[in-house]
């Protein structure tokens, strides 16, 4: 790696130079990534979102599929952390204001009004509906919940069946975020394989694979995804359907990744250390996996991070149009279907909340991926 020598400016102070010279590639990547403030924020948010995705029920306040006919289109209740007692001192008591359902005397339309004197007290690590933490440990503890189990709380309001939007977003986080990961993983398998073959062997195989990639990239994705998704039988079990949707998303998703891999292969193929390994009589497998893979691993990770948000958006779009995941499976796209008609969003603007979740996740992953991409090649300064 000749570039490594260039990375040390000749007039740099000696300790710094030796620190950089002795650092491993991953250390260099981390140092250069750390400088990216926005990317660090993105990384933190991404981490939080994936923690939520790993244990959604812990963060939910109500069973996401529980309907409540007495709380249809219940508006959001803000979380208050402090309350003033009768003596006038402010005490830490997490609570929300209680809202009572009244009917408009003329139109009979439901109106929710805050009841000034009454509040629902909340408690951290409260008891709630039973679930399995990480799918394994049976528990009833939730991050936050009402002290009185009969009182339901709605941080982000409720939908037309009185289901808690906050809990549903948290639950949908699991499917939406995992579909991005699984879909990208499948794309990566195909992409690395074909991109690798294309870049490593070159020649005619490369030509053919390149034309296929160009062709795929020139196609509009949504109509093809829709047509493929429409062919899935509706009576398949939810898990199989979920898997098929990710598969459909990867049918086109691999092309972009294959392109990146090929580019890296092409530029590395003529590097001195690869020639050296070849002259030493290393097998092709060893050259690829031991010598070439480590030096473009960081690039792949950056491309993958940038591919995940695209997958999330694609799933959201498909489910929103009604050809992706189907209820009772909860994903952000499925939730946004509730916001599809203008009448319901005018009555309940909080139904946009899943959209905000999508935007937040996609932004965070984009910032993270951007930072990773800039940091991926620490020798190229």
């Amino acid at each position, binding site marked *: 790696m000749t570039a490594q020598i260039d990375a040390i400016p000749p007039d740099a102070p000696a300790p710094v130079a030796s620190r950089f010279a002795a650092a491993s590639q991953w250390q260099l990547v981390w140092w250069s990534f750390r400088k990216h403030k926005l990317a660090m924020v993105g990384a933190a948010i991404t981490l939080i979102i994936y923690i939520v995705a790993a244990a959604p029920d812990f963060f939910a306040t109500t069973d996401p599929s529980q309907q409540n006919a007495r709380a249809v289109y219940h508006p959001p209740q803000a979380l208050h952390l402090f309350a003033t007692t009768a003596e006038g001192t402010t005490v830490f008591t997490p609570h929300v204001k209680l809202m009572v359902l009244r009917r408009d005397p003329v139109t009979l339309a439901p109106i929710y009004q805050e009841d000034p004197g009454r509040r629902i007290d909340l408690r951290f690590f409260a008891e709630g509906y039973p679930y399995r933490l990480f799918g394994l440990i049976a528990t009833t503890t939730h991050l936050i919940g009402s002290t009185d189990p009969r009182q339901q709380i709605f941080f982000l309001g409720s939908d037309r069946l009185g289901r808690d939007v906050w809990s549903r977003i948290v639950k949908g986080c699991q499917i939406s975020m995992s579909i991005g990961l699984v879909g990208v993983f499948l794309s990566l398998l195909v992409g690395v394989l074909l991109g690798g073959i294309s870049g490593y062997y070159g020649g005619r195989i490369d030509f053919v694979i390149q*034309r296929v990639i160009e*062709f795929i*990239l*020139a*196609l*509009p*994705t*949504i*109509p*093809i995804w*829709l*047509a*493929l998704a*429409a*062919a899935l*039988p509706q009576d398949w079990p939810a898990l199989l359907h979920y898997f098929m949707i990710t598969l459909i998303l990867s049918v086109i998703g691999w092309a972009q990744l294959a392109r990146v891999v090929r580019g890296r292969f092409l530029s590395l193929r003529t590097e001195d250390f690869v020639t050296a390994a070849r002259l030493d009589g290393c097998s092709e497998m060893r050259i690829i996996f031991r010598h070439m893979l480590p030096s473009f691993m960081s690039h792949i990770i950056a491309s993958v991070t940038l591919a995940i*948000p695209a997958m999330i*958006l694609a799933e*959201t*779009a498909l489910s*929103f*149009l*009604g*050809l992706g995941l189907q209820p009772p499976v909860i994903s952000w796209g499925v939730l*946004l279907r509730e*916001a*599809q008609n*203008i009448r319901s*969003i*005018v009555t309940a*603007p909080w139904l*946009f909340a899943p*959209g905000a979740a*999508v*935007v937040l996740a*996609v*932004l965070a992953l*984009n*910032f993270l991926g951007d930072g990773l991409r800039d940091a991926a090649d620490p020798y190229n300064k």
Partner: protein
Amino acid sequence: MLGFIIKRLLWMVPSLIAVSFLAFVLIQLPPGDYVTTYIATLAASNEIVDQNAAAELRSRFGLDQPFLFQYVKWISGVILRGDFGLSFEWQQPVSELIWERMALTLVVTISTLILTWAIAFPIGVYSAVRQYSIGDYVTTFIGFLGLAVPSFLLALVMMYVAVVQFGQDVGGLFSPEFQTAPWSWGKVENLLEHLWVPVVILATNGTASLIRIMRANMLDELHKPYVTTARAKGLSEFRLLLKYPVRLAVNPFISTIGWLLPNLVSGALIVAVVLSLPTAGPLLLQSLMSQDMYLAGAFVLLMCTLTLVGTLLSDILLALVDPRIRFD
């Protein structure tokens, strides 16, 4: 130049064949065929079709033939007679249903493309020349936001704002009185009045990435020695910019049309569904929902062809602008 265009045109042939094959595979993908659907429709109105009649129908439409034979039959019908098959749902030839919608799709797409360019080009140049200025940060931020907000969400928000703030419905491309009216100047004017809503929504998404690209291209060029030379020779800053770096930075910008267009067609589909525009999107979705596959296949075929032709045009345009590609 001519040689390049001919070569590029010849490349279109395998791509178009592949696209048409893809569309036909999609048509064939759902279980059952035309006759199964036909029988189901008849059964719904209490008419029973016996097995023999069904077999006869199948052989009449060539449905008992192998896949490749059916494909050739379908595609030759499309090319020679403009016959895309029959829509089960509408009981009409597909070709009668699609053209007006495809034309409107084209109008929306091209208007969006022009607007995207018109916004992205100056802003991209500006944020590169004034790198790290407030304007640059603002456009970068808006750019990222534009990338992250799905276009259908933007459409929903816009509809919400229009209804709540202005008490107005922004859906559709025509006012009710023009919806079924024949084409006239009044109708065109009416179209233009409605067109800006989907166009602005769609442009937001593409503009974001184009600004990023233009900015990156410009930054690559701005610090090259020839820029310094031109400045040293006393060229005014504005002319200098337009004459040299912009001229070079615009090349990759043109080639991005190739991938902007597929994204645009995809985005237009969803936005059209949300805003219920009379374009290809809603009808494609409806036909897929009811497995009206010849109609769906025709749309997929035309949409893919549209993007392929767009890529072709952008390649030719690129060759016109950049002599290095012509002589390659």
